[in-house]
């Protein structure tokens, strides 16, 4: 039985609950979301749900699986209605069975929150006044209404996009750093695709020498802030997109302000110092980044899947890579279409990852030469030292792991340093005091039975309440030949004073 499904028929909660029953399940929690008679002050008569099912089902399955694993639930299911629904009808149903109530509640809550947040479902509301509107409401977010006249039908006609994909784009927030040659291509393409919010960062002003390869600007813009001129132009092009202009230098403080919470960040800068900043901010926030650089007739593109533990810019280029080593556009020259093409490739990769399209670049560098002309994909795996060297905060040296099993550091720093966090507490304990960071739940009994799936790429950090069980477990695993295993010193209780 699938764990996430759509149905056109009314939801019958009792028949859905039946298959979840299990003698070991002492707790059973359900949630029902129903059609309300009002939205944003308007009286709703009925509504219609639409989704691009293959994409939405795959996402829904991932959500239910993850919640079950994280909370130790024995069974779970989520069903969402499609088609026309009257006020009061059940739109979505979640049921979870678990050994105890705490896990059941926690998993049920996570599933409904994540489904509302991540599964692209497009909703058409019919109001008392007779009019109607398609809305995509992410949980707690403002609704996005496409601008009249801006017609996405050609893009939506793609079977992989559809109304659901369009809704996903409308709910996305993308940060573009640099409004130069690359940005001139990236920004209109993303605005045209219907990205909900674009944040444009550039502290420079438009110069005459920019214009040949930066058609985002006109001669009338010379001397104006690039970020502001770009925002004005994009707002006129597609008023349905919210554009925020930040005419500031992209530094660590600004990065910390705009990158966390973004769906993607696009590096369109022209120097290594800023490229490393973009890379590091994305890695720290777990936000995917699409980076590109150009030189004369060629370019390089890299997609950093910081959200999936992928390789990053620092895996390819050492700390010592400095600006001035090879010329930039000003010194070495550049042919206009080169940044335009690389920028279009960046925009395409952003759309691919937002829409979950096939063929996404990951752990690769794409070399593009327009003289040849040709493209070459080079495998660029995560550097062995990446865990220690790639994600380093200013003033925070990556800890060299000690030889003994005890590792004393803040959990968040361990996550940034690339440790695989494994919570060995019992499900009950986890439910009462959830792990403060992303991690896997493998209760001690299961761990000792060989229940930790191996991942040779990442060192393991075991976590328990006080660091006693995790130390014993780490020593046990080391005796079995797992060398890259540590125990969080002092456990979660010892984290109170750790920063």
């Amino acid at each position, binding site marked *: 039985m699938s764990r996430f499904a759509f149905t056109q028929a009314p939801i019958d909660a009792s028949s859905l609950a039946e298959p979840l029953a299990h003698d070991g399940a002492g707790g059973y929690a359900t949630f029902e979301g129903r059609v309300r008679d009002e939205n944003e002050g308007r009286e709703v008569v009925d509504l219609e749900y639409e989704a691009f099912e293959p994409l939405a089902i795959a996402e829904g399955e991932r959500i239910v699986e993850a919640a079950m694993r994280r909370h130790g639930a024995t069974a779970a299911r989520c069903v969402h209605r499609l088609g026309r629904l009257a006020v009061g009808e059940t739109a979505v149903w979640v049921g979870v069975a678990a050994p105890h109530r705490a896990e059941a509640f926690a998993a049920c809550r996570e599933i409904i929150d994540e489904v509302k947040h991540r599964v692209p479902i497009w909703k058409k509301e019919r109001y008392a006044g007779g009019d109607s509107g398609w809305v995509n409401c992410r949980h707690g977010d403002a609704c996005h209404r496409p601008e009249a006249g801006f017609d996405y039908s050609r893009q939506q006609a793609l079977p992989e996009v559809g109304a659901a994909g369009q809704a996903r784009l409308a709910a996305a927030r993308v940060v573009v750093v640099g409004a130069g040659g690359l940005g001139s291509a990236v920004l209109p393409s993303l605005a045209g695709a219907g990205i909900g919010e674009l944040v444009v960062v550039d502290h420079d002003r438009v110069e005459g020498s920019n214009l040949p390869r930066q058609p985002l600007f006109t001669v009338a813009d010379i001397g104006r802030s690039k970020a502001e001129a770009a925002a004005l132009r994009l707002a006129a092009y597609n008023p349905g997109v919210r554009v925020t202009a930040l005419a500031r230098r992209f530094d660590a403080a600004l990065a910390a302000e705009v990158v966390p919470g973004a769906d993607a960040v696009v590096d369109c800068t022209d120097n*290594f110092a800023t490229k490393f900043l973009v890379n590091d901010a994305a890695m720290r926030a777990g936000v995917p980044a699409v980076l590109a650089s150009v030189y004369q007739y060629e370019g390089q593109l890299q997609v950093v899947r910081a959200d999936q533990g992928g390789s990053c810019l620092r895996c390819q280029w050492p700390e010592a890579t400095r600006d001035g080593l*090879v010329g930039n556009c000003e010194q070495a020259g550049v042919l206009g279409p080169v940044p335009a093409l690389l920028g279009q490739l960046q925009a395409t990769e952003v759309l691919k990852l937002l829409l979950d399209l096939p063929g996404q670049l990951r752990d690769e560098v794409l070399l593009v030469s327009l*003289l040849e002309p040709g493209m070459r994909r080079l495998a660029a795996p995560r550097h062995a030292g990446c865990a220690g060297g790639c994600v380093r905060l200013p003033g925070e040296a990556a800890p060299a792991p000690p030889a003994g099993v005890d590792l004393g550091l803040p959990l968040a720093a361990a996550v940034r340093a690339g440790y695989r966090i494994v919570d060995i507490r019992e499900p009950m304990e986890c439910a009462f005091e959830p792990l403060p960071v992303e991690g896997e739940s493998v209760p001690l009994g299961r761990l000792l039975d060989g229940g930790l799936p191996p991942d040779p790429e990442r060192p393991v950090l075991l976590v328990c309440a006080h660091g006693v069980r995790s130390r014993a477990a780490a020593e046990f695993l080391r005796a079995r030949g797992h060398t890259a295993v540590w125990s969080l010193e002092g456990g979660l209780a010892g984290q109170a004073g750790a920063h």
Partner: protein
Amino acid sequence: MPRVRLQYYALLREQAGRQAESIETAARTPAALYAELAGRHGFRLPASQLRVAINAAFADWESELRDGDEVVFIPPVAGG
């Protein structure tokens, strides 16, 4: 002697005056090969500032070269 196919990018393409070439070499590693080519083409960038890829994957400078390998030398580029 093993024959390798070479691809040059960015500054190296400029200095070599070509995008690609095929050569026979006694070099056993990309490091030795780059030193040989630096002499021939006047490459000024030190190998420590470059990356090398063999047969479509980034590789170590000390990996072993084989007959028929495609070797790509990649300088860092930052233009935008």
